[in-house]
């Protein structure tokens, strides 16, 4: 098992910048009273983050906007969205989404693409 010193230095650097970006806001602000505007702003961060993670994952393929029926993720996201809205169950949404992708691929739609 070889571990090179230069790689360790790089990985430790990656750890430092990642950990600091995770820990500093929580540790620095946990004992402070936040102003009302900041609390209102933060209340919209979660929905904004989730939309900005979900939208590109289904609408962008290979760095390009993919609004066509060959985009398996886009097709599968419709039933996933419906199940999510009806049941609010994470597991059920994930299972239905995966099943749809599996079926679409078995039908030969979006072969080779979609990842």
């Amino acid at each position, binding site marked *: 098992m070889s571990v090179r010193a230069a790689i360790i230095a790089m990985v430790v650097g990656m750890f430092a910048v990642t950990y600091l970006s995770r820990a500093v806001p929580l540790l620095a602000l946990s004992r402070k009273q936040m102003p009302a505007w900041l609390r209102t702003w933060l209340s919209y961060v979660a929905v904004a983050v989730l939309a*900005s993670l979900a939208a590109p994952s289904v609408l962008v393929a290979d760095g390009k906007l993919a609004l066509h029926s060959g985009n398996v993720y886009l097709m599968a996201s419709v039933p996933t969205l419906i199940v999510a809205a009806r049941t609010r169950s994470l597991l059920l949404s994930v299972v239905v989404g995966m099943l749809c992708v599996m079926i679409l691929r078995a039908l030969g739609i979006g072969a080779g693409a979609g990842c």
Partner: protein
Amino acid sequence: MGSEAGSMMARGRKRNTSGSLVRFVRGARLAVPVVVGYVPIGLAYGVIARHSGLSPAEATLMSVLVFAGSAQFIACGLVSSGATAVGVVSTTLLVNLRHMLFSMSLLSRLRHLSRPVLAVLSFGITDETFGVAVGRFPADEPADWREVAGLNFVSYAAWVASSFVGAALGSTVGDGARLGIDFALPAMFICLLVMQVSSRVALLVAVVAGALAVAVAATPLRAWATVVATIVAASVGAALDRHRAERRDGHPGGPAERRGS
């Protein structure tokens, strides 16, 4: 459970002090969809790390210390193209700046905890554990740290273990794509998003964030997509909220709202 059998009576009396394991397991169960998504990505990361010239130990070490999928994939690409450590670390910083938003956003659920506990829990903040945490732990309510720890630790363990297996094997295991496993995390984000859309303003914020993220993701600035989209969309939401509150309270500056009191 078995080792605690003798304390069944005591447990009934002091509900809050016992059952740490139960709480941890409850949190661990929340991690199930995250684990389903992490395993294939972790395996793929391990394989790619080997192909970009990292040893199995180095590839696993990166998962142990960094625990951030997209940054680790990018680092592999940079290493194989001969980038310097400084280049890799600064790119990692850029890609992972969004964690500051997650961390701030979790404040309302975690601020009651001690600093050492926060220091440990914050290591486990990722896109996925953050998404599940905001979906499962109500805002402005103190979350049980053992449940958060269960969620974060099980997700972390799945990431490290699958990275190690991928790196040790060094070649793709089976064809996960045929089973649709690669859609697990997008599907999870879709459901978590639906759970967050609780008002018209929230829906508008989601549409603005999604559109902006897609627009930025199609440019070379894609590392900034989440950060830019989140900051702009949350600001739009906060501004709208304030505008509405002012109209409701009868402040000047907007037409009177009919259904206002």
